[in-house]
């Protein structure tokens, strides 16, 4: 296999708070190949956003990326770079777009200024030159009358436009990797589709990789080629998209997929996964999903499952991989707390 663009190895990001150590990301490994779109999916609290921020080292106190973690980008460990070298990567080789475009943009600067700033930081462009490039970029992401729009302020634009501005900002330097943290969650459904299309198109044009963070399987289905399912700060399943949808292995993945409402399905009750995500300060021993799993047995309580390879490109962190005969539904091991 060609060398991956991004290789996260055993990432552990802990938050050392007064209330205990929150192990938000606890031993995550994943890779992104050049030109690939990898989706990271999971409920809130599973550590996916923290993973994204960790890559760019945007984790502030009391959070810390623990030693033993490695984030290899184009062969270099990002965690060993000094401040200057890291800043040369941010916004330049790796860029990120965030969930809430309204709050993610500075309200007192024009959108044009904010997009142009990237060129001034990394390309040493003059104000005029940077502005020109910014307008071009805004046009490229599909903002009509880009020249005039650039002089407006974030509060004057609609949600979809603002997200386009964020995308323009991120792509100014044609980064090799774009991290998109819930890029469409805050938008209307119709706008969501437009933005996803835009992202796909731009990815093709620029030949970049995308790491797409979301809780929405629908988004994954449309855009990703590979998926990583996260739970409890770890990857619990990894597979190509089609494989994951067709043959989900991990009970959590199955639960998530079953919970998706489907058009045309008979009007039964929506399936839910009983229980709630445990607190990151207190991951249970053994398998972290055991309290909510229909198949859990005593092994799940005492032994933390490793990530088992089911096939060349499909892995699952579940004891069912070695004891498939245990896949018999029964009431969960601990009384389920319906939130």
């Amino acid at each position, binding site marked *: 296999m060609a060398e991956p663009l991004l290789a996260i190895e055993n990432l552990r990001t802990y938050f050392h708070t007064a209330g205990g150590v929150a192990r938000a990301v606890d031993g995550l490994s994943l890779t992104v190949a050049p030109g690939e779109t990898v989706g990271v999916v999971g409920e809130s609290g599973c550590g996916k956003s923290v993973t994204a921020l960790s890559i760019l080292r*945007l984790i502030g106190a009391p959070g810390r990326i623990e030693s033993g973690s490695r984030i290899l980008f184009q062969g270099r460990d990002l965690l060993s770079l000094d401040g200057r070298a890291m800043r040369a990567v941010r916004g330049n080789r790796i860029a990120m777009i965030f969930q809430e475009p309204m*709050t993610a943009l*500075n309200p*007192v600067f024009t959108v044009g200024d904010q997009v142009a*700033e990237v060129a001034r930081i990394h390309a040493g462009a003059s104000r005029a030159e940077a502005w020109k490039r910014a307008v071009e970029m805004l046009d490229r992401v599909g903002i009509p009358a880009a020249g005039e729009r650039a002089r407006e*302020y974030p509060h004057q634009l609609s949600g979809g436009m603002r997200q386009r501005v964020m995308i323009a*900002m991120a792509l100014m330097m044609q980064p090799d990797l774009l991290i998109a943290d819930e890029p469409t969650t805050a938008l209307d459904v119709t706008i969501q589709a437009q933005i996803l299309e835009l992202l796909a198109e731009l990815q093709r044009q620029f030949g970049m990789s995308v790491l797409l963070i979301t809780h929405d399987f629908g988004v994954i289905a449309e855009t990703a080629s590979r998926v990583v399912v996260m739970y409890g700060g770890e990857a619990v399943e990894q597979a190509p998209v089609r494989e994951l949808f067709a043959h989900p292995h991990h009970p959590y993945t199955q639960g998530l997929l079953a919970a998706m409402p489907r058009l045309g399905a008979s009007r039964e009750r929506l399936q839910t996964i009983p229980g709630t995500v445990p607190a990151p300060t207190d991951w249970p021993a053994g398998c972290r999903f055991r309290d909510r799993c229909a198949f859990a047995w005593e092994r799940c309580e005492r032994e933390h499952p490793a990530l088992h390879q089911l096939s060349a490109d499909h892995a699952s962190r579940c004891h069912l991989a070695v004891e498939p005969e245990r896949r018999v539904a029964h009431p969960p091991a601990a009384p389920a707390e319906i939130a």
Partner: protein
Amino acid sequence: MGRRVAARLGQAIVVLWVVATLAFFLIHAAPGDPFGFDAPSITPATRAFWRHQFGYDRPLGVQYARWLDNVAHGRFGYSQSLHEPVRDAIAQALPRTLLLMGVALVAAFAIGILLALFQVQHRGTRRARWAGTIALLFYSLPDFWLAMVLLLAFAYWVPILPAGFTVDPVMHQYMAPIPALVDRLRHLVLPALTLTLLTTAGVARFQRNELLEVLPLDFIRTARAKGLDERAVVRRHALRNALLPTITLAGLALPALLGGAVFVEKVFSWQGMGWLTVNAIGMRDYPLVMAAVIVATCMVVLGNLLADLAYAAADPRLRAD
């Protein structure tokens, strides 16, 4: 924008009316007699005549109406202690106070904002902590005490600056333009320095808090994600947002500045409105004291109005209305 101005003007007028009414009430409720000074030539008949002439024997309602009318036209009556119309006394003193306060305001905000920036850019270091402690120290000083200490230090122990007044009382009239200007500046230094030091601390504290409030916001994270270094993040992205409330602070600082000016003017014999007021205390010079309160309130109201307009102009979210 026009509606906003009109609304604020309306509020301002209400405030002034309330204060004028309060002043009227205070004058009439206070003990003592505006004409009660003891002098052999003043007979009861004279007092009665004055009372009639100044309308003190009219019914209260009529007096109130006349009072409001007078205040609106700036006719504050006659000052017994100064033997001139209050209006003239204030007209002379006000510019001096404005000069002092203006210099202090500008200097205090400039230095205070820079100090806050320093504290936030280097937060957690010892330097920043020391800066914070020094700011807190100056914030805790009594106005008159700092004035006295500075006077002691720079006019007596190390006599490099004059000990009082706005200009040299004897020599100024004979000076050529440039030396006269220097003379004015030399007299301005200590009182302005005092007021500035006291106000800077408050500004720095406020600005620092505002900066720290802005730092956890999302767009700061975006700025970092763009590869901007931390100092530029604070200076360019955070400050611009954190300066907005500071504009409002400028308006809110005026009452405190006016209060501080009273003590500073007294210690340095700076013949501004504060000095006038203090001197009028012992003399029961009702009209002068009340006029000072009303004029001071006027200044505060005006200052707040300007600050409000400046804020609306500076915040793009408010501009487009």
